[in-house]
């Protein structure tokens, strides 16, 4: 069974602090996506990483795909209350005949003003 483990499960920090959340697997993914889900809403895609070692930046958010394409991290600089939400990673198995995204359970992030 392919699993994506996210850590930490829960993180509560003060505004202005930096943080990193992780998404790890023993499986290799052809790509990996990060989503943010706010209460009462569906997940919204933040970024897709494809190449091993790839780094993508989205304002204060930095996403990295591991060299072996088994793990990824999300780093937020100077966190703001608007960053609060559930951050989900999802890996693409790359199986042609039965496409599936494998989902992590998420990191619930709370940024306190």
């Amino acid at each position, binding site marked *: 069974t392919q699993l994506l483990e996210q850590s930490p499960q829960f993180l509560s920090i003060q505004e202005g602090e930096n943080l990193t959340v992780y998404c790890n697997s023993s499986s290799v993914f052809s790509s990996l996506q990060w989503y943010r889900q706010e209460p009462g809403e*569906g997940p919204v895609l933040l970024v897709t990483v494809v190449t091993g070692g790839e780094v993508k930046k989205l304002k204060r958010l930095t996403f990295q795909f591991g060299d072996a394409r088994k793990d990824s991290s999300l780093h937020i600089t100077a966190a703001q209350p608007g960053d609060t939400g559930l951050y989900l990673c999802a890996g693409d198995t790359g199986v042609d005949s039965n496409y599936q995204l494998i989902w992590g359970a998420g990191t619930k992030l709370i940024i306190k003003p």
Partner: protein
Amino acid sequence: DTAVSQTPKYLVTQMGNDKSIKCEQNLGHDTMYWYKQDSKKFLKIMFSYNNKELIINETVPNRFSPKSPDKAHLNLHINSLELGDSAVYFCASSQDPWTGKETQYFGPGTRLLVL
């Protein structure tokens, strides 16, 4: 303009009832999905349809039956509802399931509570 819409947003019902959730996407996508998100926030795929054809059918009780009247709609009918069916059900769509780089667009979710 809502890209992926679901109705109802909330559904509270008694055990044993039959209910349906509707999903529509106006993105012109060929593929639609149903996911179940449990209380621990795991998103688990249930079904996927591509051009009205079932392509993914995970281990889901046969009380759950998806129906795709056209590629813009994917409805989910649930028979004989059980307490364990309580969850948030998300519909999603993407252009093509087979490129592996797809962005899935999610609906707002349907919060189902079975009493």
